[in-house]
């Protein structure tokens, strides 16, 4: 799967700590912008800027308009990250399982001394 090396992907969108904070808050449910601003303790323009980035990659969805805009998490857009971690973890698990075999042999050698 080819991915653009720009900021317009899920990996980059969640690279910013504040954006991860926003996602954390939205993980527990839909929120209007003003509530997000309050909960995060950030200036509204900054929150809006981060929300825009998250929207661009589809990590959040919005409904309503103006001050009555509600944001919610779209887990599907973050799936590439989720999948990536799972595959990465799988590679290491298989690597370590091979290492267990090696270690068992080393232990037997030690005991045989």
């Amino acid at each position: 799967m080819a991915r653009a090396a720009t900021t317009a992907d899920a990996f980059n969108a969640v690279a910013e700590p504040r954006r991860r904070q926003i996602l954390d808050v939205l993980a527990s449910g839909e929120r209007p912008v003003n509530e997000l601003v309050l909960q995060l303790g950030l200036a509204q323009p900054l929150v809006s800027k981060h929300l825009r980035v998250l929207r661009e990659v589809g990590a959040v969805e919005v409904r309503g308009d103006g001050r009555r805009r509600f944001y919610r998490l779209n887990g599907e857009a973050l799936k590439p990250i989720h999948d990536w971690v799972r595959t990465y973890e799988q590679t290491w698990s298989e690597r370590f399982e091979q290492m267990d075999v090696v270690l068992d042999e080393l232990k037997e050698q030690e005991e045989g001394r």
Partner: protein
Amino acid sequence: MTVTGSRKATVTLPSDRQILITREFDAPRELVWKAWTTPELVRRWWHANRGEMTVCEIDLRVGGKWRYAMQADGFGEVGFHGEYREIEPFERLVSTEAYEGIPDADAHAAVDTLTLTEVDGRTSMTVLVEHPTKEGRDMHIESGMEDGMQDAMNLLEGVAAELR
């Protein structure tokens, strides 16, 4: 050998540019260290069943170089190299790690820190991978996404841990 407890590797994302891999081994840390730093032994596990390891060079001294390469099934040769920076036998190993599949690999090299802690003959291992640049991370993740083979030294940022 009996296997007790979970032997699954755990991957977490402590910060933007870090990946932390943890795993417990039913062996004293001297042996884990030996398996990690002896070329003949590394050749037996590093491939992760994804191909055959073709190069395994380890010059285990501060400033010494290392290079691993494998012929990955359905992908071709992938190589990594780096330099040892700190060596505390059986406890801690700090090295750089460059993925040869990206341009200007050394400029984007990650720093890997291996730590081994032993309790009652069992060893907890942590491998912390830290990428210095966003570019290096991006290129590495991208290459990983494309070839479908996730290499040891990819870097990830994100919220996946929280998404479980």
